[in-house]
């Protein structure tokens, strides 16, 4: 169909032509609007779903949480001896604790020193919600002498904030000497309140 024929047809069917053009305009506007809305609808639904999920989690928390008396919650602190991390500033104190426990276990000639990080596999560390525990960038090396039973007793009484990484026992003419390497689990000072 040529342009002239189309023009003639439009003149002949003026009313139909007007309705057709009007319909096409409405169609174009509707498709544009609808496509735009559809494009925005998908992310809006994802956001809506996340918000509902958050609300559900909060509701579940509210339903599960049982409030205690304020005094009971305040008492909810473990003693320092049970802490599983130590601030970096208190590493000397930790070395002292290790030496003391070694001597108490019956080991002799105990010598403690700080050493670079050990190449052994890192120890597991606790995952707390309110604070972060990391493996210290140094190790504590402990050399001592004594009986095997004393060594095992010491191993059983190592502080929880330290992790035994390595034990080397060597026999010599003077007896048996031991070399132990500990990594230290460190926590930030503000969180380790008991170390104040």
């Amino acid at each position, binding site marked *: 169909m040529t342009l002239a024929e189309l023009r003639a*047809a439009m003149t002949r*069917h003026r009313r*139909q032509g007007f*309705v*057709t053009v009007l*319909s096409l305009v*409405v*169609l174009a*506007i*509707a*498709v544009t*609007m*609808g496509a735009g*809305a*559809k494009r*925005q*609808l998908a992310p*809006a*639904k994802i*956001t*809506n779903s996340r*918000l509902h999920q*958050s*609300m559900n989690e*909060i*509701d579940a*928390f*509210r339903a599960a*949480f049982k409030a*205690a008396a304020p005094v009971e*919650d305040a008492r*909810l*602190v*473990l003693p320092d001896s*049970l*802490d*599983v991390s130590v601030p970096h500033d208190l590493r000397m104190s930790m070395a002292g604790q290790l030496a003391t426990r070694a001597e108490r276990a019956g080991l002799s000639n105990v010598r403690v020193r700080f050493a670079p990080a050990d190449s052994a*596999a890192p*120890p*597991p*560390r*606790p*995952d*707390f*919600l*309110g604070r972060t525990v990391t493996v210290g960038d140094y190790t504590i090396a402990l050399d001592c002498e004594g009986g*095997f039973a004393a*060594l*095992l007793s010491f*191993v*059983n009484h190592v502080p*929880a904030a330290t992790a*035994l*990484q*390595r*034990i*080397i*026992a*060597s*026999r010599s003419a003077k007896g048996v000497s031991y070399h132990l390497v500990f990594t230290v689990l460190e926590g930030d000072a503000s969180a380790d309140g008991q170390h104040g």
Partner: protein
Amino acid sequence: MSGGPRAFGALLAHDGVCLVEYATERTGMRIVDQWTEPSRSQSIEEALDRLRAMIDARGARQPRVAIAVEQFGVFHHTMTLPGATDDVLQPVIRREVQRVFGVSDPVIAFARGAANERREPGRADERTAPRQLFVAGAPRAVIDALGAAFRGSDIRVEIATVVPKTIHSLYKATGSSPEPTAVLVCLEGGPQLAFFLDGRLELAIDPPIALEGEPPSIPTIIDQFERGAVYFRQQFRGAQATRVLLAAAPTEFDALASALESRMGVHVKPLFAAASTPAAIVAMGAVLEARHGSALDLFPHPPTLGQRMSQALRGPNAVVGATAAAAAIAAIWAVLQVASLASTRNDSAKVETGVRQAIAQVGPSKSVAQRRADVSRQLEFLRATTREHAALAAELSSLAGALPAAVRFDSIAVTRSKAGWAATIVGEAAGETTAQAVRALDQFYGAVRSRSDVASPNLDQFDYAAAKPQSDTTAAEKQAIAARGPITLQFKMSFTLTPARGNAAAAGAQP
């Protein structure tokens, strides 16, 4: 009488209007009553007014009526054309009607009759076989008047047909005998004559023009019949009607029948005994025609919904309809999308506000819960650490306990690894003979390998110790040699201890 709307048949003519009320019963139709308005009408409108008045006088609600129209320029024609669709046949018939009847703008209607296949069986085709067509027509003004008369009223017109076609329907109602038959209906306007051959309507002859108010006499009717019979014989290879179905006024039926029998040598039977007048018979013929599958109908029925849709979707209207429908569907879809988006956003805003408020409310509870969880995890970690240390100590103790008297360790190195604890033992096995020393080492190696908590045991090094000069041997060594034997094997053994890794399994523990 049935409980449905009352039903009527009617004959509309210049010379009078006849109305018949009938009831449909299980065995057929029964005439209930009939009325005749014999006054002459000057126009179709006047005749229609009379008909409406007669129907209204019956007091029927939503009555149905089938109308036969005589005169008022209404005409009938039969022709035979090859089978084709209505679109093809319509212009052909229109031109033929204009040529034969000289009407410039007629309204025409046609109905298909029986096929008349004369080709050999090999070439026969039902679709293109010549087919008899019954054509009715009328000036447009007449049909417009018909439509206008009943528009807006509660009377439903089933059909407006022509008298020859009503005669055809009546003939079929008698059984469509193949015997050449003439049907003679003596109306006020003159005798309507039709000839049937092999059950088909072959010839329909309108009455001659008569003087106003002068009903045709019996001799006139006989003459008309005789001329018709001659024409029929000439047109159809000597066919001769041997039977006449007659519809005439009761007063002249017998005389007319005996005249036909004596002059034409035919036997005469009544066409429709249930009705008393020819006009009533024709009216019932219109009723029968209305029930016909392909009725010949001139009435301008308002288009049905399907016809309107079909009309709307043809030509330029099809484009308009398609674009309008597409626009409507797109508009509905767009509205749904926008509404859905708005609804989702509103809901999100409400939920977000709720979440913010809830977070503020549960803040203190959350910190308490967090502290509780941390304490719980700390305790669990402590337990796991204690278990791990105890397990390691127990392993080392057990290992030392499994040591035979002839084997001793020079060094033990235990290092944390991903799989557990990597252990390396360097030591000596001694005996009086090599066999004894090797047996002692093998005993120890076997004991290590058989432990369930030992993995990848390996004897890395195995050699004889270099004998020291007697002068370099200490007294203690001399004493040990004396106790354990002179043969000493040095070895290096490595394996992995895999005790229960308490901390790895601890809740919340990280590698």
